């Protein structure tokens, strides 16, 4: 029995040695390797280009460095160069304008359609009867336009102020014998349409004062009205040769064209 107990104890020790020792060795080796890697990793972080404070120190003692440190500084320089080379540029999107325009148009149509649709349950607001400021300004403008309308001159039919005008003028002329009175009588007869009398009175006025332009004109006009256009033109041309006035020229033109 004793032998069996001893054997069991021996077997137990053997089992422990067989299982625990390899486990311990694995744990130890992993600790060693892990620790080593951690140290290496933390070291590489210290010399990384992101930490400016450390990099300065490293750059400052570059002459006294060993081979591994020189390698690290070299990697630092390349990293810096890479960093400097990073240049960003915007990427401008390509836009299908035709498609966008189509969307816009459909939007417009839908909007129009939706505005026409009236819900039967909605109560229509009473139309506003007040005029807005813009409407009032339009009204004012319209009124202004009315005011600005071109003034139509009323044609007045000539009537002598006095029924006895010609008689009184004849009396006056007989008293004074002035060319002006004769001219006024000629004008009055011409306006009445009595061209014969007008011609005679114009002639008598011209005899008294040959320089009076109006006597020449009334004489010629009366002649023309009586159908003696050639004579009228002759008279006016002879007068034009003396006076060279624009009015005479104009009257010649009017008789020639038949306006008078």
């Amino acid at each position, binding site marked *: 029995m004793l032998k069996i107990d001893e054997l069991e104890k021996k077997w137990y020790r053997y089992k422990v040695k067989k299982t625990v020792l390899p486990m311990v060795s694995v744990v130890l080796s992993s600790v060693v390797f892990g620790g080593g890697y951690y140290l290496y990793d933390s070291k590489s972080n210290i010399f990384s*280009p992101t930490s*400016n404070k450390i990099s300065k120190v490293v750059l400052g003692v570059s002459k006294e460095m060993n081979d591994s440190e020189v390698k690290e500084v070299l990697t630092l320089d390349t990293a*810096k160069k890479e*960093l*400097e080379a*990073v*240049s*960003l*540029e*915007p*990427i*401008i*999107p390509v*836009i299908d*304008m035709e498609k*966008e*325009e189509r*969307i*816009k148009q*459909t*939007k417009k149509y*839908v*909007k129009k359609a*939706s505005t026409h649709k009236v819900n039967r349950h909605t109560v229509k607001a009473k139309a506003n009867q007040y005029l807005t400021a813009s409407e009032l300004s339009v009204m004012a403008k319209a009124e202004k336009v009315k005011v600005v309308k071109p003034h139509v001159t009323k044609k007045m039919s000539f009537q002598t102020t006095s029924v006895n005008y010609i008689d009184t003028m004849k009396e006056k002329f007989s008293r004074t014998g002035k060319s002006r009175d004769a001219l006024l009588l000629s004008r009055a007869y011409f306006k009445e349409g009595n061209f014969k009398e007008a011609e005679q009175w114009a002639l008598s006025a011209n005899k008294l004062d040959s320089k009076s332009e109006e006597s020449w004109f009334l004489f010629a006009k009366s002649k023309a009205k009586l159908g003696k256009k050639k004579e009228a033109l002759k008279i006016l041309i002879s007068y034009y040769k003396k006076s060279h006035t624009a009015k005479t020229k104009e009257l010649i033109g009017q008789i020639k064209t038949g306006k008078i």
Partner: protein
Amino acid sequence: MKLILFIMMTTSFLFSSNLSTLYKFYEKQEYKKACSYATKYFYKKANKNSEKYLTLYGLSCLETDKIDRIAIPMVRLNSTKDARANASYFSTILLQKQLLLQALIDNKAIADLHLPQTNFVLSKIFSLYINKKFILKNSVYKFQDEKKENIKYQLYIEEAKKNKKYMIIDIYKDDKFIHRYRYE
């Protein structure tokens, strides 16, 4: 059937974007208009989720004085490779601006910093500043563009009312003033 069609039509336009208008502004180099337009319609779900809209939003505001606005589209640009590149671009510029502001106002030492470079003018100035390639005269930093000889920059702080400070970047071409950025 009609009802379904109607619903489909209405919902489709609800999710459509203002992209074409924004792009037209950007194309015409009307950056101020583009920036304010993009800010105005950012609230729409379609625009918020449109990578193109967000990029144009950022690029437009980048060219204006309201550069801080690029932060809004920047944080949402993360779904694709291009979007992430643009987000990095915006964030770099914004960071550089903030650092320059800190350096100029608070005398913060930023000479040892190494940030990515971009083609944007602020980024160029940042790079010239940290490399100390400037002439300092009367609190005005004068820079010479490294690639273009006829381009010069001036960087300084302008003090406005209520102790408000602005960072000014003036660009000169052939010694003629051509553009000013005024950052808060």
